[in-house]
């Protein structure tokens, strides 16, 4: 399945764009997604940490991704 990944803050600079498209297997997890992204964008591994959100909620590494989910990369937040 093809999924779109939104990027914010420093992740947007690492991707060079605010949205990237990826091809994942149908039962892919957040862990699989992070692995693939880190292969394509090694600078992600230099971040203090980063989370993945699925449909506006923080996701866990074992969570499964579904087609049409809204996926976002959440680098360390710094609001306030």
């Amino acid at each position, binding site marked *: 399945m093809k999924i779109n990944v*939104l990027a*914010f*803050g*420093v992740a947007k*600079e690492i991707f060079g764009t605010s949205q990237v498209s990826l091809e994942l297997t149908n039962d892919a997890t957040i862990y699989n997604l992070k692995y693939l992204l880190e292969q394509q964008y090694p600078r992600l591994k*230099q*971040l*203090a940490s980063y989370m993945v*959100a699925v449909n*506006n*909620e*923080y996701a866990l590494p074992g969570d499964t991704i579904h087609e049409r989910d809204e996926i*976002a990369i*959440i*680098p*360390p*937040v*710094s*609001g*306030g």
Partner: protein
Amino acid sequence: MPNIQILLSAEVLNIQSCIDWIMSPESGGIDVFIGTVRNATKGKTVFKLDFEAYEPMAISEMEKIAKQALEKWPVQKVLIHHRTGTLQIGEVPVIIAVSAAHRDAAFDACRYVIDTLKQTVPIWKKEAFEDGDVWVAAHP
């Protein structure tokens, strides 16, 4: 919810309207935290801050924090307003306001809201220094 007000805005935040909304006849006091843009970080001059938000998730995370504050303390209303875009020194990126019958709950809830916002709400700030821009907290 009638006792929660959340706003994420590119416009200047209005401190007085926050105070007007949070006050109520049942309140014995209100607690207001106003964040302001500081002119330096670790001794380096800062010229401005840029705030970016993942808007739908930022709003839903702010709503969660406000609901948690209402559950954890006997407070009457919780307000969270946050700016996006470019802010100059002295401008206001965030306002937290809480009303309660007694001050302990208002102080504790207000502190919880701003501390938790800084940990969980997907908003990012970039500091502009003389020698370049840096996303805050991105790197160890």
